[in-house]
C-alpha cells in the first residue's frame, strides 16, 4: 500500500549517533544455474540503541535472509546489495570474510530457534559459550571459564557450575535457550539478532525467553527480532516491519502497525491470530462468517467416552514413565473438545490411545456407546471409519507413491466404491468440501502447498463419514494465515457434517478459539477442565494459571477499540512512546517473576 514503496519514511530519521544499524534498500538474491531469484527486495530500517525492531512475516517472506544478510551469512549462491548497510557507522558492504568474522559475536549476537538444535548437541554448553569468547581471543582459559559461569548466572540459570558441564539435550527447554542467549551475549554485543527465538518452545518457556530478551533490552542492547508470531512481536517490538515475499509491505511504530494497520495483508495477519476473542468468528478474510450460535447437540449420548486411561512406557534403562495417567472425558455429538498441554504432557499419547493405535495399560474407551478399546484389532477394524485422524505433518502421512486421487480413494468406505461414477462423484464432493480444485486429483502431495496438503488430509479424514475426527496438532505447522483458513474450514465442516472434534494442540490461542470444552494436561494427567470461559477467565489449578499467564496476550481489538473487520483506512497517529501496555496489552511482569 502507500507505505510499501517508501524507502525513507519520516520516522526513520533519528539522531545518527545512537543508530547502531542502518539499512537502506537491502536486496538479497540467490543465483544458481537455474536462474536468479530475489528473496529480499528493498528493506530499509534503523536499529537504535536499546530499541527492538521486529520483522514479521510468514515462510518465504525473506525475513530470515534479511537477518542473515546483515551479518554476511546469506548462504551459498546468495548476493546482497544495499544502498546503505552501516554498523556503528561503518560501511559493511565492502567487508571481507575476516572483517565479518571479527564483527560476528563481538558486535552482533545471534539467537536462533530452540537451542536443542542451535547449540552443538555433542558438546557441553560451557564449551559452546566459551567458544564465543575463544574465537575472539578473549582472556585465557581460566578467565573464560569464570566468564561462562558469570554469563549463565546473568541469564538466570540456576546451579551454573553444574549446568555448564551438561549438554543441551540434558537441559530443560528454558535452560538451554538461556544458554544459547548466554553464548550470543558473551562479549556484550550492542546488537542481538533473534531469529525465531521462541519457535518450537513451550509457551511457559517462551515467556521466560521473552522476559530475558526484554531485560537485555533494558540493559541497552538493540534487538532485531525475527518472528512469524505476532503475539511474540507485540511483546517486545518498538518498531515493526511486515514482510511478504521479500517486500516490506508496511512498517512503523509497533502501536501503529498492530493497532491500525494500513495494509490488507497486515490486517489479515492480525485477524488470523486465534484466541478467545475470535471464538465464533472467521479468522481469514475470504471465509463466510460462521454462525455464532451453536447447533443444539443431536441427542445427548456421547460419541466418545474415555474412562481412566493409563499408558506407561518402559525406557531403555528399564525405568517406567507414565505418559498418560487416569485421563477421563466424554465427547458429545458435534462438539469440539480441546486438549491442551506442553510437550511431554501426554496429549498426543492420549490421542493415540483414543484412536486405538496404542495399547491401553488401564481404562476403557467407548465409541458411539459401543466397546472400542476392549475389542481385538480385527473387530475394531470395521469400526475404524467412525473415528479418523488428521496429523500435524500431512505429507509423511501420505504414501509417497500415491496421488491425491489414490489417497482419497483408499479412504472411501465400501458404499462409495460401488461403481466408477459413484467413486468419482464422492471424490469430487470431498474436494469441494475442503475447497480444493478437482485438477489436484492427479497431483502428488509433494507438489502441493502446506495448506493444500492439510486440506487433502482433512478430506481423507472425512471420506468415511466419521463421527469423530482427532486433530493432532493439525494446524501447528502451518503459517498463521493458512492456519486461519484451515481453522475456518474445520469450523464450517463441523457445522455442515455435525462431526465431533478431539482437538489436540499446544497452542492455547488455537484451543481457545475452537473448543467448546478444554482439558488441560500436564505430566500425563488432566489438571483442569472446563469451558474456555472458565479456563481462561478463572483458572483454578496453579499450572493452568501459569500457562494462561504465559500467553503473550494479543487482542488487536483492545489496541484500537475498533473492530478489525473495518479498520480505519487512515493510519491513526498513536504516540510511539506510549508504554507497551496501552498499545499492545503486554502484561507488565517484572523479568524476575517470570524467571523464578
Amino acid at each position, binding site marked *: 500500500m502507500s507505505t510499501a514503496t517508501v524507502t525513507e519514511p519520516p520516522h526513520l530519521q533519528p539522531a545518527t549517533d545512537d543508530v547502531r544499524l542502518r539499512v537502506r534498500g537491502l536486496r538479497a538474491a540467490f543465483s544458481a544455474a537455474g536462474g536468479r531469484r530475489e528473496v529480499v527486495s528493498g528493506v530499509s530500517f534503523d536499529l537504535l540503541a536499546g530499541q527492538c525492531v521486529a520483522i514479521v512475516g510468514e515462510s518465504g517472506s525473506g525475513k530470515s535472509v534479511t537477518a542473515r544478510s546483515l551479518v554476511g*551469512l546469506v548462504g551459498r549462491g546468495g548476493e546482497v546489495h544495499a544502498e546503505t548497510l552501516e554498523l556503528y557507522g561503518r560501511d559493511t558492504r565492502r567487508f571481507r570474510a575476516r572483517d565479518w568474522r571479527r564483527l560476528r*559475536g563481538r558486535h552482533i549476537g545471534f539467537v536462533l530457534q*530452540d537451542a536443542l538444535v542451535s547449540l552443538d548437541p*555433542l558438546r557441553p554448553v560451557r564449551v559452546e559459550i566459551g567458544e564465543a569468547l575463544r574465537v575472539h581471543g578473549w582472556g585465557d582459559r581460566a578467565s573464560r571459564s569464570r566468564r561462562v559461569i558469570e554469563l549463565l548466572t546473568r541469564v538466570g540459570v540456576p546451579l551454573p557450575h553444574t549446568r555448564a558441564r551438561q549438554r543441551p539435550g*540434558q537441559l530443560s527447554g528454558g535452560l538451554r535457550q538461556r544458554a544459547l542467549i548466554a553464548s550470543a551475549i558473551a562479549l556484550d554485543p550492542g546488537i542481538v*539478532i533473534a531469529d525465531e527465538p521462541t519457535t518450537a518452545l513451550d509457551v511457559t518457556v517462551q515467556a521466560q525467553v521473552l522476559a530475558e530478551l526484554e531485560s537485555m533490552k533494558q540493559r541497552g542492547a538493540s534487538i532485531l527480532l525475527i518472528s512469524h508470531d505476532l503475539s511474540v512481536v507485540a511483546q517486545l517490538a518498538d518498531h515493526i516491519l511486515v514482510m511478504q515475499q521479500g517486500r516490506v509491505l508496511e512498517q512503523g511504530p509497533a502501536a501503529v502497525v498492530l493497532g491500525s494497520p494500513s495494509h490488507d495483508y497486515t490486517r489479515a495477519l492480525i485477524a488470523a491470530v486465534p484466541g478467545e476473542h475470535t471464538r465464533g468468528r472467521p479468522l481469514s478474510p475470504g471465509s463466510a462468517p460462521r454462525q455464532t450460535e451453536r447447533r443444539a447437540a443431536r441427542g445427548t449420548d456421547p460419541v466418545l467416552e474415555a474412562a481412566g486411561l493409563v499408558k506407561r512406557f518402559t525406557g531403555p534403562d528399564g*525405568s517406567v514413565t507414565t*505418559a498418560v495417567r487416569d485421563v477421563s472425558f466424554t465427547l458429545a455429538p458435534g462438539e469440539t473438545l480441546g486438549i491442551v498441554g506442553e510437550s511431554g504432557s501426554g496429549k498426543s499419547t492420549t490421542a493415540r490411545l483414543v484412536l486405538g493405535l496404542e495399547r491401553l495399560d488401564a481404562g476403557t474407551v467407548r465409541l458411539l456407546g459401543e466397546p472400542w478399546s476392549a475389542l481385538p484389532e480385527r473387530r475394531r477394524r470395521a469400526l475404524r471409519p467412525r473415528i479418523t485422524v488428521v496429523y500435524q505433518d500431512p505429507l509423511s502421512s501420505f504414501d509417497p507413491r500415491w496421488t491425491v486421487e489414490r489417497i482419497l480413494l483408499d479412504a472411501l468406505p465400501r458404499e462409495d466404491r460401488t461403481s466408477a461414477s459413484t467413486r468419482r462423484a464422492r471424490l469430487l464432493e470431498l474436494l469441494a468440501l475442503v475447497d480444493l480444485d478437482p485438477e489436484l486429483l492427479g497431483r502428488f502431495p509433494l507438489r502441493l502447498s502446506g495448506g493444500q496438503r492439510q486440506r487433502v488430509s482433512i478430506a481423507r479424514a472425512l471420506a468415511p463419514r466419521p463421527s469423530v475426527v482427532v486433530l493432532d496438532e493439525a494446524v501447528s505447522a502451518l503459517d498463521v494465515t493458512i492456519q486461519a483458513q484451515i481453522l475456518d474450514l474445520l469450523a464450517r465442516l463441523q457445522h455442515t457434517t455435525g462431526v465431533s472434534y478431539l482437538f489436540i494442540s499446544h497452542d492455547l490461542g488455537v484451543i481457545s478459539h475452537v473448543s467448546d470444552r478444554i482439558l488441560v494436561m500436564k505430566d500425563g494427567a488432566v489438571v483442569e477442565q472446563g469451558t474456555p470461559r472458565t479456563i481462561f477467565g478463572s483458572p483454578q489449578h496453579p499450572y493452568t494459571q501459569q500457562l494462561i499467564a504465559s500467553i503473550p496476550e494479543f487482542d488487536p481489538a483492545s489496541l484500537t477499540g475498533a473492530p478489525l473487520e473495518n479498520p480505519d483506512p487512515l493510519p491513526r497517529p498513536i504516540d510511539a512512546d506510549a508504554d507497551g501496555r496501552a498499545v499492545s496489552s503486554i502484561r507488565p511482569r517484572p523479568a524476575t517473576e517470570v524467571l523464578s
Partner: protein
Amino acid sequence: MTRTSFADAGTSAETEASPATAPTSFGRARSRAVARQIVRKAGSALVVLWGAATVAFFAQLALPGDRATVILNIRAGQAQLRTPAELAPIRAAFGLERPLIVQYLDYLRGLITGDFGNSYQQFRPVTAIIGEQLGATIALSLTAILFAWLLMVVWVTLTAGRGPRLTAFGSLTDVVVAGLPAYWLGILLLLVFALGLRWFPVLGGSGPEGLVLPALTLAIPLAGFMSQSTRAEFERALEQPFVLTARMRGMGDWGVRISHVLRHAALPAITLSGWALGATISGAVIVESIFSRPGIGSVLVAAVNAQDLPVVTGIVTLVAVFYVVVNLLVDVVHTLVDPRLVQS
C-alpha cells in the same frame, strides 16, 4: 512448530527434562543405563560368536564323502579309496569316531581355550599356523584403516558442502574409488610407485616402507566407502542450526568444519570400523598375494586350494572374533564421541 505429533509421546521430553531437575538421580540412572547396555551388548556379542563357531563347525562337515577319507586324500594330495587300517589313525587323531554332538561341544570347548583344531594338511594346530602369520596381517589391516581415516577426513573436509560442482565431483570420486578392485589398484600402485618411481620396494619387505603400498591399496577403496556416509552426514551437519550459531559467533569456515561438523560426520564411519577391519583382513588376502607379503591371506589361499577346512574355518572364526571385539570397542568410542547415546 517443528514438533511432530508422532514423537510427542511424552517419553522423550520427559526423560530429557528429568535430569535437568535432578542431576544426582540422573547420574545413577545413567550408570544403570550404561550397565544395562554393556550387558546387552556383551550378550549379543556372545551369541554372534557362538553362531560363527557353529557355522564354522558345520562347514567342516560339508565336504562330500567320508571325512577321514577326505582328510587323508587332502594330505596325500590325491583322491583314492582308503582301507580301514589307513583311516583308523586319522579317525583317532581327529576324534571322528565320537558322536557328532560330542565333537561339536568339544570344538566349542577348544575354541574357548584357543584351540582351533588341527590342519588336515600339515598335522599342526591351526592356532600355530595362523599365529605365525597373524602379526603381519594385523599390522597391514590397522595401517590400512589408519590411512583410510586420514584420506577420508581430509578428502571430505576439503570437498563436502562446497557448492554443487565440487560436491558432485567429491561424491562421484567416493563411489568410483570405493568400487576399485584391490587387485587392480594394487597392481597400479606397484607399477607406478615401486617399478616406475622406485619409491617403495617391489616385493614384500618387512620394514615399514614395505607396508605403505599394500596398506594404501586397502585404504583407498575403504576411504571411498567411508566417505560416502561421512559426506552425507557432513553435509547434513553443515545445514544444522548449531553450525549457523557457531558462524554467528565469529567462527570461520574451517573452524566450524573441524571443531563442530567433523565430530558429527565421523559417527557413521566409526560405526563402520568393525566392518572395516573384516574388510581389510579379507582384502589382505588379495593384497598379500600381489605384493608377495607374508600373512594369513596367503595361508588362507593355500588352505582353500587344498580344501584344508580347519585352517579356513579357523581364520574365518578368528576374523569374526575380531569383528565382535572391535564392535564392542566401536560402541565405547561411539559413546565418547556422541555422549547422547547413553541417554537414549
